[in-house]
């Protein structure tokens, strides 16, 4: 008789399984977890800590906070950050001072580890929440973070 009880239990277990999927089928409208991405672009907001890409914020006078100390360049494990700097005469004090010429960021090499931002003593760079980074040519992934003609915000070094 175990032959028939086997069949009974087998069928019962199969029906239990089907009840689970059947329940989801009936609630399919409510329970759908699909995010329709390009359509929901307006409402899709990333978390504020999301690591999209490294950016350097500039204020309205085109001033940034990067002193060119190169701590981020040292902290980066992949060499994604290159800083080209120069010693120029500061127009205010008249002394020679280290100033960045270009803060180059290779997004294509970046692993989003966040060590550069942790290392930065002046909070000159931070994470942007932009995640649509695809480009047709990978040279476009090499970005210069400081805007042309930008200067160091006075008082950051103190």
């Amino acid at each position, binding site marked *: 008789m175990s032959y028939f009880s086997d069949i009974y239990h087998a069928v019962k277990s199969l029906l*239990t*399984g089907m009840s689970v999927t059947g329940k989801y089928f009936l609630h399919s409208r409510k329970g759908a977890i699909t995010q329709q991405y390009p359509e929901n672009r307006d409402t899709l907001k990333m978390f504020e800590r999301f690591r999209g890409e490294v950016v350097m914020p500039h204020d309205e006078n085109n001033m940034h906070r990067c002193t060119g100390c190169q701590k981020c360049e040292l902290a980066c494990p992949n060499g994604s950050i290159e800083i080209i700097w120069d010693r120029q005469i500061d127009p205010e004090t008249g002394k020679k001072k280290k100033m960045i010429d270009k803060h180059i960021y290779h997004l294509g090499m970046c692993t989003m*580890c*966040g*060590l550069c931002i942790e*290392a930065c003593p002046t909070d000159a760079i931070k994470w942007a929440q932009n995640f649509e980074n695809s480009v047709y040519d990978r040279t476009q992934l090499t970005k210069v973070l400081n805007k042309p003609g930008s200067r160091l915000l006075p008082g950051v070094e103190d």
Partner: protein
Amino acid sequence: MDATTKTNNFKSEEYFINMGPQHPATHGVLRLLLTIDGEIIKKVEPDLGYIHRSIEKMCERDSYQQIVHLTDRMDYLSSHINNEAVCLTVENALKLEIPDRVKVIRTIIAELTRIASHTLWWGVMGMDVGALTTYFYGFRDREMINDIFEETCGARLTMNYNIPGGLMFDIHPNFVKRTKEFIAHFKTKLPEYDTLLTGNIIFQKRMKGIGILSKEDAISFGASGPVGRGSGYSCDVRKHHPYSAYDKVTFNEVLKTEGDTFARYQVRVMEMWESLSIIEQLIDNIPEGDYKVATNVVIKLPEGEYYQKVETARGELGVYIISTGTKNPYRLKFRSPGFSNLSLLNHIAVGGKIGDLVATMATLDLVIPDIDR
């Protein structure tokens, strides 16, 4: 024709077949050289190296802070636990006193990582035996954990939240709320896993009695994690060598003695319950305090050898550092759980069918970048 040649006409012949490096069941770029007689497996020979990135060598180049983010890329499903392993090794070497807050947060996130890894495994396990729907149910629950991670750590998979000396930043204000929501949600969904798959007669017939690994073999092959515990080998690092906050919580080490594929499956499902209970014990009692202790910018470990092991979702991960007192390790070796678990595949899969091999491999829960590093 004489009798011997006549019988030879009916003799089956073994043939060789390449499973992978591109194959749906190998979950990555693992290549298995199979010798098959009809449907029956005669020999399984794993061929590795398709995703070797020389992480250990790169570690010798990098500073101790930089090493941490490389470990994300090994076992990407338990990246937080990998990070923790390196950080613990460095902290132990420096004899740093880690705040309790850090320990508790690390433990909670590690357990969330374990659940995330196991839910993904459960979904993929179902898919390997042909039940395609489990995949989406598993991912639905994993998605909630990933959101928690994204909000607190900034990344979903390669989190790099640990640094030697603590955490990169404090937990997000929503962390506790979201984790509690997840616990409540997952407690209703986990029984569903059982009704959908575990109790299914086809699934049980497929899983029971295949890929049997005895306790002796589990020990001699160096099996760890749910693979070892499915064979009755008590090998939970959290229990035997507690680190972080595991000495403060009570939990059971899930042990099964059957040693077959179904036992390993059950161990993982039960472990999700245990992880839930660990999180529940800690989530309301996160102590106040600093989220990191200050370390030198250039960390130099004192000369010597250091070893620390942790329990990842797959088993025992060991980090072995030889330092000569410079800012880079002289040698860094990872003892990854996937590698030793893969080594016993030939031992347990021989004699089974092709379908058995796939099911067995699924319960070993291999992550190929962890094996190749």
